[in-house]
């Protein structure tokens, strides 16, 4: 790849499903890199366990065991650490460079062996000397696990990025100026892996900005040695790719509903009506049964709050609602305000189920759901309007602080 830097990974042509969260049309590559300096050799990440033999063969061609002085673990997901348990005993003098969060995962991986090694928890700016070459560490959490980091061999114009700017694409030509067209995979990777981590992706790029980067070396897919700046620029575009909302600085609420006989729709309209009372607030009312789900998920990503109205069928929410709630995993929902409402004939299980799922997605759900029997009464419609007003008040800061006793919580 470069003077003293080698690709020592493995090609996995048969991979079709990764982590049960994304597919791969033509396999992937699990990539490890070796960086040589005058005082030793550093291995940057390893491969999936089933490809450990390939990795060791590649490594043996470059260095004797005693020459390996450092192991840098930019990411500790299994397909990056499959050879670590076998590698460490061979190179017991090696320094292991890993972020503080990574130490927790490494402890789980090495079990009783954990204490044997010189483990260096690192922070951004820490360096590792290989004699005439120095590796600089950049802690870039949540791209896309908590412990992820990047490594920059100073003076090489090269950045090891683990999963950032990677993709599942298998081509023995290895670099983007020679492999087949992999753009679909790069964008799919962003959508399924990096999208929920958008602020962290931006943070990682901001950290990289001062660096001279001529080549980006991820742990999966082509090495980006042609136009690496284009890839960073494209990723930055993907982070902010949607048409800007006309809401601007106004806070926004989405009221999604499906409704079998119109009662849940009536409740949703009442929430909308209540929220609309606040001129400086931007509610939207959408029947999610009548459209494709993907754009509705996109809207949630930018909204400040969500009220979900759901009908109950056979003691459960209907497929539209579950499909929507399952799809939200692709975006960051932490801290958004949420609530569930719905009309039912019998016990209305869908509403608390939906509310529990919203909480499970780490949204803020400060009140119990609203469930009504059949058609809502005037009082129930007013309760829905009040919910809309409170949501607006929460987000605009107009709501008064409520005070309750612990006994009130226990009673509910």
């Amino acid at each position: 790849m470069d003077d003293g830097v080698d690709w020592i990974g493995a090609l996995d042509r048969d991979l079709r499903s990764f982590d049960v969260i994304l597919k791969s049309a033509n396999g992937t590559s699990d990539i490890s890199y070796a960086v040589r300096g005058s005082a030793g050799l550093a291995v940057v990440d390893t491969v999936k366990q089933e490809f450990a033999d390939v990795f060791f063969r590649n490594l043996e061609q470059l260095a004797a065991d005693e020459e390996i002085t450092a192991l840098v673990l930019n990411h500790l997901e299994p397909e990056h650490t499959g050879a670590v348990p076998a590698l460490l005993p061979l190179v017991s003098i090696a320094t292991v460079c890993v972020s503080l969060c990574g130490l927790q995962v490494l402890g789980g991986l090495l079990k009783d062996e954990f204490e044997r090694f010189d483990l260096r928890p690192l922070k951004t700016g820490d360096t590792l000397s290989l004699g005439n070459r120095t590796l600089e560490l950049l802690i870039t959490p949540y791209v896309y696990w908590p412990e992820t980091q990047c490594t920059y061999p100073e003076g090489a114009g090269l950045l090891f990025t683990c999963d950032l700017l990677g993709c599942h694409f298998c081509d023995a030509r290895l670099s983007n100026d020679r492999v087949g067209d992999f753009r679909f995979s790069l964008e799919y990777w962003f959508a399924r892996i990096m999208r929920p981590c958008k602020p962290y992706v931006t943070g990682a790029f901001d950290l990289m900005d001062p660096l001279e980067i001529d080549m980006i070396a991820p742990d999966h897919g082509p090495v980006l040695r042609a136009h690496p700046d284009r890839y960073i620029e494209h990723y930055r575009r993907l982070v902010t790719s949607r048409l800007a909302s006309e809401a601007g600085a106004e806070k926004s609420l989405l009221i999604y509903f499906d409704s079998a006989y119109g009662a849940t729709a009536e409740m949703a309209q009442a929430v909308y009506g209540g929220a609309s009372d606040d001129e400086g607030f931007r509610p939207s009312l959408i029947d999610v049964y009548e459209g494709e789900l993907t754009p509705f998920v996109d809207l949630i990503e930018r909204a400040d709050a969500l009220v979900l109205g759901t009908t109950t069928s056979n003691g459960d929410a209907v497929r539209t609602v579950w499909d929507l709630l399952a799809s939200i995993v692709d975006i960051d929902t932490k801290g958004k305000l949420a609530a569930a409402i719905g009309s039912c004939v019998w016990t209305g299980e869908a509403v608390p189920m939906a509310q529990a799922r919203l909480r499970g997605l780490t949204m803020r759900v400060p009140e119990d759901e609203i469930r009504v029997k059949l058609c809502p009464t005037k009082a129930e419609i007013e309760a829905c309007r009040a919910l809309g007003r409170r949501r607006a008040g929460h987000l605009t800061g107009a709501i008064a602080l409520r005070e309750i006793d612990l006994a009130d919580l226990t009673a509910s």
Partner: protein
Amino acid sequence: MTKAKLTFTDVALTVNVPAGTCIIEISEKIGSGITYGCREGECGTCITHIIEGADHLSEPSALETRVLKENYAGHKDRLACQCQVLGGDVKVRPA
């Protein structure tokens, strides 16, 4: 029994609680945005920012101190699954 006021600013709610109440006991019931992982002080998921009343919280254990440090938490951050409210007024929000 000594009482305390525990306020979750992200959901605009104050709960009157007995001294010794752990933040986790209340935050999940009221739907605050504080999220939890292991619930045992190991993972750092529930790092919570103390807006007011840090002096009214139990002292951090060695475990909590270590995990806060490992997660680069600020000096006004605590683990909601570990710290107890001992009295007075305490205001918190998700970190």
